[in-house]
């Protein structure tokens, strides 16, 4: 394919990236020399990888592209570089290279030797390492060494893509060529999304009901409504929460169905945008659509579409889905109190007998107090570690009557540890129940309040400083 054709095709495929495609075409052509190293950088969802992949695929230059995310160690990356270079050359030249000399690539020098051997006497070869900054267990010199591969192997061109530009310090090189993919601007984002509007009506209205409503007309209406809808979504939500293409698109897709619901039910016409947006304004006020969730609950249909519901700030209460056994619940509450109360206040809160002198609970802060010493509420701080016996002591103080000293209590502590509701503080031994260890809770105030209420115990009463 001719360079101009490639450019034309890529531009039609990737909008708003004309300039970058031109650059790539200028740098990497089949016959002209190419830079030995290029750092392509840009934030997520800016089209780096896709454009590179498509360009090299179309241009017919022998190349190998490696997704560094899939590599677990640096060794893994090196092995894959050699393996996929072999594959790429095999495929490009339609031959079978003898692979025996390339059996092992343990380190960078082996890579250097192997690649030099492999590319000796061949034409230009492009190696793309995608997301090279995402490599786990990367050594400090890996990127610098990779950057200099081109010096020893003249026909290798290396492209590293990263999120942020590689600094000269990490490359040990004062100047390296870079190609920046800036994030899309608002007009660009809107232009990309307008390209492919979803349908308003999942099933086209039957011909009898609306004989004039042709598919062409429907497509025109969809495009009209969609373009206004996405700019509204961008201005209200995505501008502040996620400006990249992916989250913007997913947000629009999540909101589109509930947005056009009144149109589908026939309440508004397809071009009643202003009335529609007022009717559906709660969609733009809630944050549900911009939060990532595993479970798609789906928008619950409002009972009365004429009455726009006000956005409710109420969050789903963090109640445990499965009721815990009675003593386990108390153990968790005791652990929370041990973590958030200073140990010197234990006498005040948990002594069974009343000692007038000591047993005076601090009253909740008055307004004057609060302004004088502005303190962060305790339950907003990180939990502090406590020894196991303190937990057990508070546990016994919380319960009326005695609890037998059975091993079940320890079983429960071990179970809660494996659920990460209790966490061993500090890198200690492996034994969860070894004496002398310190512990910490792994849950928050809302959870413990719900737990306490399930056993008729108001945890706030035992918490130092109280909770508003």
């Amino acid at each position, binding site marked *: 394919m001719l360079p101009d054709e490639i450019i034309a095709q890529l531009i039609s495929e990737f909008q708003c990236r004309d300039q970058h495609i031109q650059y790539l075409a200028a740098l990497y052509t089949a016959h002209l020399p190419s830079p030995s190293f290029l750092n392509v950088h840009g934030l997520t969802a800016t089209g780096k990888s896709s454009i590179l992949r498509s360009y090299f695929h179309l241009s017919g230059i022998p190349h190998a592209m490696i*997704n560094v*995310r*899939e590599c*677990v*160690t640096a*060794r*893994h990356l090196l*092995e*894959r570089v*050699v*393996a996929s270079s*072999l594959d790429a050359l095999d495929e490009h030249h339609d031959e079978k290279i003898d*692979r*025996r000399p*390339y*059996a*092992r*690539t343990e380190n960078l020098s082996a890579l250097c030797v192997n690649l030099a051997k492999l590319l000796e006497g061949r034409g230009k070869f492009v190696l793309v390492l995608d997301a090279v900054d995402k490599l*786990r267990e990367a050594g400090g010199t890996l990127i610098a060494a990779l950057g200099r591969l081109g010096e020893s192997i003249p026909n290798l061109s290396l492209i590293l893509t990263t999120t942020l530009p590689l600094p000269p310090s990490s490359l040990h090189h004062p100047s390296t060529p870079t190609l920046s993919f800036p994030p899309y601007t608002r007009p660009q984002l809107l232009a990309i999304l307008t390209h492919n509007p979803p349908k308003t009506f999942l099933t086209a209205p039957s011909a009898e009901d609306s004989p004039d409503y042709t598919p062409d007309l429907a497509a025109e209406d969809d495009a009209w409504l969609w373009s206004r809808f996405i700019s509204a979504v961008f201005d209200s939500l995505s501008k502040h929460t996620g400006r990249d293409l*992916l*989250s913007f698109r*997913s947000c629009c897709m999540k909101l589109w169905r509930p947005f056009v619901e009144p149109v589908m039910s026939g309440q508004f016409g397809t071009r009643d945008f202003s009335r529609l947006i007022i009717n559906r304004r709660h969609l733009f006020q809630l944050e549900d659509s911009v939060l*990532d*969730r*595993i*479970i*798609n609950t789906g928008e619950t249909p409002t009972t009365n579409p004429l009455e726009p519901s006000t956005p409710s700030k109420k969050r*789903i209460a*963090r*109640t*445990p*889905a*499965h009721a*815990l*056994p*009675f*003593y*386990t619940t108390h153990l968790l509450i005791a652990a929370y109190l041990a973590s958030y109360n200073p140990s010197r206040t234990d006498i005040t809160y948990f002594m069974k007998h009343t000692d007038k002198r000591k047993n005076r609970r601090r009253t909740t802060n008055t307004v004057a107090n609060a302004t004088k010493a502005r303190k962060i509420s305790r339950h907003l701080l990180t939990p502090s570690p406590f*020894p196991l*016996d303190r937990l*057990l*002591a508070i546990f*016994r103080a919380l319960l009326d009557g005695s609890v*037998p*000293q*059975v*091993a*079940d*209590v*320890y*079983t*429960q502590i071990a*179970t809660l540890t*494996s*659920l*990460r*509701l209790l966490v061993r503080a500090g890198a200690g031994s492996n034994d969860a129940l070894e*004496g*002398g260890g310190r512990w910490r809770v792994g*849950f928050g105030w809302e959870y413990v309040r719900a737990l306490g209420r399930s056993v008729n115990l108001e945890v706030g009463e035992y918490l130092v400083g109280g909770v508003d």
Partner: protein
Amino acid sequence: MNLRRRKNERQSVSERANTTHTRNYPSDFRSTATCGRSKKSASDAVQQKIVDFISTATSSPDEPKFAIPAGLIVAGPSIASHGPFFQRLGQNIKDETNSAYVVLTSGESPNLKTLLKNLIKKVTSHVEDDDDDDLDRPASSRHGPKLLNYDLGHVQEWRKKNRVASIVIAFQDSEAFDAGLLADIVDLFNSWLDRLPFVLLFGIATSAESFEDRLAGRSLRYLEGEKFDVTQSDDIIEKIFSATVASTASRLHVGPNLCRRMLDRQKDHVQNVQDFCDGLKYAYMSHFYASYPTIFLRNGLAFEDLPAEAFEAARNLPSFRRLVEDKLEDGRPGNVRQLLESDQHLFQQITKSMETGQHALSTLSHAAQVLFSIRASLQISPSIRLSSMWTRAAAGDMVGSPILRETMLSIKKISSDKFVDLLAALSSLHGDFFNMDLDTLQQELNSLIEKNDTSAPLRTQHDVRNDSLRTTVVAQKVLLSKHKAALSEQDRAYSDLVGRFHDQLEEYFESAFIDPQSIFLSEVLIYDLKSPHTEVFQPKPRFAIERALATPHDYLGCDCCSGVDGNEAALAATQPATAIVYQMYVESGALINVSDLWSAFNAIAGDGEEDNEPKTMALFQRALAELKYIGLVKPSRKKTDHVSKIMWKGL
């Protein structure tokens, strides 16, 4: 149909047992099998849903996916039962969908590399059995670059040979996995998703929300799925209970005290179905192993099979003594003499009372079932679980109890529409152990309802709506008087019918709810011993150590340690050194001055002579070292010459 099959299975099991064993344990076998089956049936619906989810997720393998299908299985806090659950789930998934199934636990995956190695090993070894030419594969090291052993390329290669529709990976205890590891693995799987069709299942003990909270938004974006709630373990236990303990088919009954203990433990300490089943099995086992007369529980026993010791053992049972005393009171000493002297006679007596005892106990179980279904059908609140109702009945305090009285009173007030439902519910329980004449009642009721021309249901005379209050003012005092409204002809007939039903039912309950302890051979028919059960299932390690150290006399039982002047708590030189130091330890504060401790020890254990002091010192040092070994003290840096106390007695 299902029930019948189950029965047949049971019979075949016990038959097999009959032929192979000299002493068979029919209840044991049956109940164990039933435990498993009830557990299975309880979680079947959820498992089916998960399997459906997987098959829909993999229905279009060629379509590019942007997120990994993920099932969040909220399996509850009893993590011990997660293992069997995922095992069964794997079987179902493999049977019904074309998938590879791998379970990963947190223990075997401390980091990404190990996790991947394990994963690859498990996935690829699934078919090694039916793929023998695996060995012919060229040893790749000689032929070119070899994949590292944590490269998912192995799985890809494997999949080329075995076209599976999906690779299901279950994280059995997702909470225990490191959050960073989970994020890494999700990221990795997502980038492989175009080549390997992964489906992830996460076993969650707390809640799906807290699982989502642990992952970053990026990882969440790569996952998309559904939540599955596994049946609560209380419900499963209830099912197991009614299939084993409260079943009319069981020959050995677990007694009320033990039942209450086991159920309370489930409620208070552990929610663990496995544990409950183990408890039941242990109860059956200890009954049969520890008690000789249980040999009489065997079906079809002949006199010749039995040794004389069995009869001797039976004669030593308290219930035998009771039987004898009753007979003497009745004035039948001849009969008693026969029982005491002739084994043959005793055998006949035992076989007979075994049968009647079984029947009585089964009737009791069934009556509890009947009472439960009456309450369920009348929707009397508070709803009481069958297990607690059965336990009360088995303890013999059901007759005259508030539950029974309340139920009977509400039966008196029942209206005809509810009565129809009740009869329908009861007719399913009709059988050997509940033989009230329901059909006649049903017919009479039907004819009454047919005659009823109003839309309102028929009401009895006890119904509140038939009462009216009348106030009369006599000499400036208000008198309230209740009056029965005049009953219509039909209502009167209906009241009659309900009254008869009520009387019959009351009679039935009175005959059924006996005190099980009163029947002859109740020791054989019922196992209700607390002792081995508590020690085995609820040991008290800390208590035992503290007690041994605080009062060594309890364990040593020697004369020398019994205390000074009858005071057991007093320290004495004859006690073990560790015990002496421990008792001083208990009395001290959080920081202990070792020098003080030594002088106190020397005052008790030493004999005041200077020459013997090194000996005492050695004892003291060993005692302190032992306390440190147990984990009671540790060296402190807060103060010189002090150790800190880290365990308090009685916690």
